[in-house]
């Protein structure tokens, strides 16, 4: 089975062992015992170390909690394109304002073609009655402004797009 974790594909395999299961991740083999508790709740023992593990999934991801640590694994799809090491490092997301939830545009503070510096205000978004000033994380040039004051913006829509300074 393949799962994506931290932009990496993990190839894993599970098989039965004499008194439990064997998990292979790449070259590593881990022997573990697993029992069902309640729906989505499992008891695992590895080398005597006991952990209660919580798991839930939707169509894209599997969410897991082990001892207060949260892990999210993405389920690969046919069109999954892993971001290359390069893009990941550069932080492609720093060049666009993407509201993570439906928001209202209170005030656009920049214009197309304008040069912005790190920390400079780009737009004020309102969500759940709180205003949030979104500041630029990079020195850049405003490439596009896709909304005007008062617009409602859905998750995943790009409000402002920046371009690196040549």
């Amino acid at each position, binding site marked *: 089975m393949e799962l994506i974790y931290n932009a990496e594909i993990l190839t894993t395999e*599970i098989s039965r062992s004499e008194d439990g299961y064997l*998990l292979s991740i790449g070259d590593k083999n881990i022997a573990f015992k*697993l029992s069902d508790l309640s729906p989505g709740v499992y008891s695992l023992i590895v080398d005597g170390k006991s952990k209660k593990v919580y798991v839930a*999934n939707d169509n894209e991801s599997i969410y897991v909690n*082990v001892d*207060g640590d949260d892990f999210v694994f993405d389920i690969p799809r046919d069109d999954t394109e892993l971001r290359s090491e390069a893009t990941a490092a550069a932080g492609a997301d720093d060049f666009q304002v993407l509201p*993570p*939830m439906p928001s209202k545009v209170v005030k656009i503070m920049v214009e197309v073609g304008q040069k912005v510096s790190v920390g400079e205000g780009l737009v004020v978004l309102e969500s759940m009655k709180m205003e949030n000033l979104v500041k630029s994380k990079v020195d850049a040039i405003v490439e596009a402004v896709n909304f005007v004051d008062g617009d409602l913006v859905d998750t995943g829509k790009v409000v402002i797009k920046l371009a690196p300074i040549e």
Partner: protein
Amino acid sequence: MLNKILIANRGEIAIRVASACRQLGVPTVGIYSEPDRTAKHVQFTDEAYLVGPAAPTESYLNIDRIIEIAKESVCDAVHPGYGFLAENATFAQRCEDEGLVFIGPRAETIRLLGSKIEARKLVMDAGAPVIPGVTLESDDAEEVHKAAQSVGFPILIKASAGGGGKGMRIVESEAELEEAVISASREAKSAFGDGTVYIEKLLTKPRHVEIQILADSTGDCVYLFERECSIQRRHQKIIEETPSPALTPEIRREMGEAAVKVAQAAQYLNAGTVEFLLDEDKSFYFLEVNTRIQVEHPITEMVTGVDLVARQIEIAAGAKLPFKQEELTQRGHAVECRIYAEDPVNNFFPASGEILLCSEPTGPGVRCDSGIFTGYEVTVHYDPILSKLITFGEDREQALDRMSLALKDYVVLGIRNNIRFLRDVIDHPEFRKGNTDTGFLPRHYPEYTLPEGKPEHLNYALAAAINHLSRRTTTAAVVGTAERPTPWQALGSYRMF
């Protein structure tokens, strides 16, 4: 006693109020907006009626409709909780006019204390200390600059009408001043319908310390000691504790007595909180009065043994306070963390969506006032608070150790939340030392990065995830929970994709 109480709120506080009513044997009526049909508070009230569409103005702020439901369901009292209509004098007045007992202060008191300017005057007359400050009559640039200079930078801009951090801005220098006033005023106008703002001297390293009071209809008033709420993000409290690590018995008594003086000057009735800023030199200044039950009231309940919400209801029903000041004691230590649906690594942007799995901590000294459950859908329409986690200990160290573990045991899957962040703060060495002031979070967490899960935990996570997925996809119609398939039935070794 009251006959039936309408709870004009939602979420954990509506449940908290319903639970107090059930104990007192008073039936309750709940209200819910369209997306809140499956919200938890609906299941904790004896009756529940649709109040309107999602938008707060059409539902939980819709005074006419709420009064109508109260009348139709034959209620004789209304509990407003916190937020929404809790500090709305018009609503309190309307209840009084319609013959409904408003479980809170008199409308006149709410009006008086709701205006920061009038409250300040009252406090000064009562002889309690206030911070230097000025109300802005307009956003005229010259006036704004003059006012700012008169109190001196850094300054704090506050909405005259509001509370809860809305319409607040810190301004360090002249350059940011005008934009801040305009934006604060706009936010205040949208949140409270009144854009008047007020500027005051900003203490550089103050602690936020507040005093809980209770006053009955005979004019008796007691204080139930302090809560320190210095751990704030953008003026929003996120961690509260009591006792405050900074108070001496003397300052505690002085502050408590100042709070009672303020309350009595306002002819206060029912539960309230008098907020102060405590400066590094231990002098304290009046901040504001919150004329409602506070989000953080449980920590006071833990250390005093008093049920504040039950007291609210009994006071509203005409009962006298059952204790005198000298009978009240603080014992042990309590701390509260507010659990929010928000993304700590993305500037704490509010999150929405379905909670796929929820498991809440329990145990000695652990209380969880929660509005969520597995399958609950967090909508974008309301405050992103999910629940409050409260722990009690013999001393501060035990209370914090219990909190740290309770946060570790608090599992919310499928929606971004601040649980891990809260645990980091609780375990921060400076927090452990009690070195808390309102600048704690910006100073120690200018940016937040989620710590990586422990590598050894990843193995557990992967094994469980793969097991879970294979189960979900290989087992079809499962009737009842009684029939639990063995993992990888009949399968030896296989690969799924």
